[in-house]
């Protein structure tokens, strides 16, 4: 596990040392590939049995392995896509070699901090990793601030809001430590493995307070409404590969882990109700903003808020079925959301605008890109036959089984609004006449020349589209088994 954590750090240093703008992307990709290979063995091992290292400071079970695999997937895709994206930025003079070195260095540090969060056994160590993700990714969002003044605004909002939020999570951590140390003494009272053993004995009043602080704190980082305000700014201003990594699964992972410790003492209904309320608020607010949105990158980030809300809702409804739906949703979103940010990055590079009204006829001028965007938009909107539809349906079924008809009704209503909003927004961009010469409506940038980088970038996007389509028809056996193992590890049976 230590090697897996060290590889991104080494890659970061290597990338920072490379001085050639042509090779730096491939160095980063090579480092990423080594990481994926090394992590694959670790993931396979921890799916079979929990893995401990460094005197139990690091720990992985099926759930950490699942989240780590998803994180590695989107990080790998972003590393591939970064090559062509940065090449294009370099050629148009938006970034220089110093900026590229900083970008790749920070990118791999970001990967390291994300992996640290899922590999940490200690609650406070996980908090340290989480705060580090905020700091590193704020720098990535604000990168190249001389040419993109709005990015400074976005990065500022991001780091201030998330730091305040995460400070509350630290208070929650302290309170948990207080509750746990009165049961087991001071040694190792913050380890997940110890806490889950004594979860039922913790003081319910104290744990309720701790959970509220944790949910607000990590909920800010996860992008749950009403503390989601940083997310649309950050995702619309960050470089496209970085938008695909935000907000990531780190904070949601923490909430899930925490839930497993808190609910045995407080009862499932307390934690479940809080998550359902947060989830429904997120879905509702996101739906309203999606419908009125005129910027397609912001539209996508409100869709991220919506999907976070759906996942919180599924976990809040609870039971094996609710958890299953949420974890499956995580998988579907891991493919669809980065894909959409990648394609919209390409559209932005081609049309030079993020305004929906300025983009038209993507389908006829760039058929492949148009088709991928269309499939991605359908998947994100939750239409059948895609994976996200299956997971949303599972969550609906969980709600119906528990007789939560009001929750089900509200969810269905807002899901329909989101469906309309996403498809009408992207429909306007994809279809229509590309040759319309109405000022900003025409193609303002030349075609991007074909290089190894663009071929790789397109390859990863095609692979993601294919996965979305395939997993809409069937959930592969090993994924089904993994999700069931996760539910067992979280104790939701």
């Amino acid at each position, binding site marked *: 596990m230590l090697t897996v954590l060290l590889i991104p750090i080494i890659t970061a240093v290597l990338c920072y040392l490379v001085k050639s703008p042509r090779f730096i992307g491939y160095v980063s990709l090579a480092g990423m590939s080594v990481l994926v290979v090394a992590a694959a063995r670790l993931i396979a091992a921890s799916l079979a049995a929990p893995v401990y290292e460094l005197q139990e400071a690091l720990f992985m079970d099926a759930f950490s392995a699942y989240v780590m695999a998803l994180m590695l997937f989107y990080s790998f895709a972003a590393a591939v896509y970064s090559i062509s994206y940065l090449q294009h930025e370099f050629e148009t003079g938006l970034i220089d070699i110093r900026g590229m070195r900083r970008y790749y260095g920070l990118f791999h540090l970001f990967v390291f901090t994300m992996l640290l969060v899922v590999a940490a056994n*200690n609650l*406070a*160590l996980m*908090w*340290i990793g989480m*705060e*580090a993700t*905020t*700091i590193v990714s*704020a*720098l990535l969002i*604000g990168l190249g*601030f001389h040419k993109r*003044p*709005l990015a*400074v*605004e*976005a*990065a*500022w*909002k991001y*780091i*201030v809001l998330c*730091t*305040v939020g995460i*400070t509350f999570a*630290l*208070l929650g951590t*302290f*309170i948990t*430590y*207080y509750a746990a*140390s009165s049961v087991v003494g001071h040694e190792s009272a*913050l380890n997940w493995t110890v806490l889950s053993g004594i979860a039922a004995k913790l*003081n319910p*009043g*104290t744990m309720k*307070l701790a959970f509220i602080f944790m949910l607000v704190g990590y909920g800010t980082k996860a992008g749950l409404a009403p503390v989601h305000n940083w997310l*649309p*700014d950050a995702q*619309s*201003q960050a470089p496209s590969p970085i938008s695909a990594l935000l907000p990531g699964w780190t904070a949601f992972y923490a909430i899930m882990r925490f839930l497993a410790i808190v609910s045995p003492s407080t009862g499932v209904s307390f934690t479940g109700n809080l998550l359902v309320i947060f989830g429904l608020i997120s879905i509702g607010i996101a739906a309203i*903003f999606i419908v*009125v*949105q005129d910027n397609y990158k*912001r539209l996508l980030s409100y869709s991220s808020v919506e999907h976070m809300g759906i996942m919180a809702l599924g976990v809040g409804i609870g039971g094996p079925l609710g958890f299953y739906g949420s974890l499956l949703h995580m998988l579907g979103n891991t493919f669809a959301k980065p894909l959409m940010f990648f394609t919209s990055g390409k559209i932005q590079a081609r049309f030079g605008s993020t305004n929906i009204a300025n983009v038209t006829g993507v389908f006829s001028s760039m058929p492949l890109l148009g088709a991928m965007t269309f499939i991605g938009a359908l998947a994100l909107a939750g239409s059948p036959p895609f994976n996200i539809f299956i997971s949303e349906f599972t969550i609906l079924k969980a709600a119906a089984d528990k007789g939560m008809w009001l929750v089900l009704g509200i969810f269905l209503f807002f899901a329909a609004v989101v469906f309309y909003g996403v498809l009408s927004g992207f429909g306007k961009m994809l279809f229509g006449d590309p040759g319309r010469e109405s000022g900003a409506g025409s193609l303002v940038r030349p075609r991007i020349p074909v290089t190894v980088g663009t071929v790789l970038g397109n390859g990863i996007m095609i692979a993601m589209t294919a996965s979305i389509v395939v997993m809409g028809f069937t959930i592969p056996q090993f994924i089904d088994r993994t999700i069931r193992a996760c539910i067992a590890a979280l104790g939701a049976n």
Partner: protein
Amino acid sequence: MKHWLETYSIIDFISVGILLTAVTLNAFKSIESYVKAYTINSWLLAGLIAVVGVLVNESHLYMAAVLTVLTKGVLIPIIIWRIIRRMRVAHEVTPYISNTLSLAISGILVAVVYASLQGGIFVTGFSRDALQISIAVILISLFIMITRKKALTMVMGLLFMENGLFLAGFSLTFGMPTIIELGVLFDMLMGVIILGIFAVQIKRVFASADLDKLTVLKG
């Protein structure tokens, strides 16, 4: 030493000092005074940790006190001073509301905290007041963050909030293991440096460090 500390209830004196340095933020007009108040606040916090270390005879608390002084009491103030010099700002804080009103609201916040944590669920070891004071400091600094315009005041509010948080954590659990505390302090230090970088950039890009200029991104 121990006897002397107990007779004169030094712990309560220090805790009240921490609260007062936070309350004074409401009255200050210049960013320099904020930094001075923060430095005093951090030294008091470290002093409190050391005193409790003497009282309960825990040697790892001395280590925590030294770490707190080094980062919060020395390093972070130096960094903030350097940022202030680099920004060459007009040193006024320009609050949205008057100082009198601001002070009154802070007073109400303290009262509310004391009233609501009266018969709380927490049984803390060394002082009846430390937890109440820490929550009050957190609330006051949040209040400062939302009512002041400048980017740097926001950073100062955040720093005060973290001090309050450390006090809360300390009064609940006698501090975390030293290695964890080291990691948390390191994160905070990096956070301050990066907030400083962005504050300088905001000043450069928007030709002002007023946060009400940051209104382009919305909806």
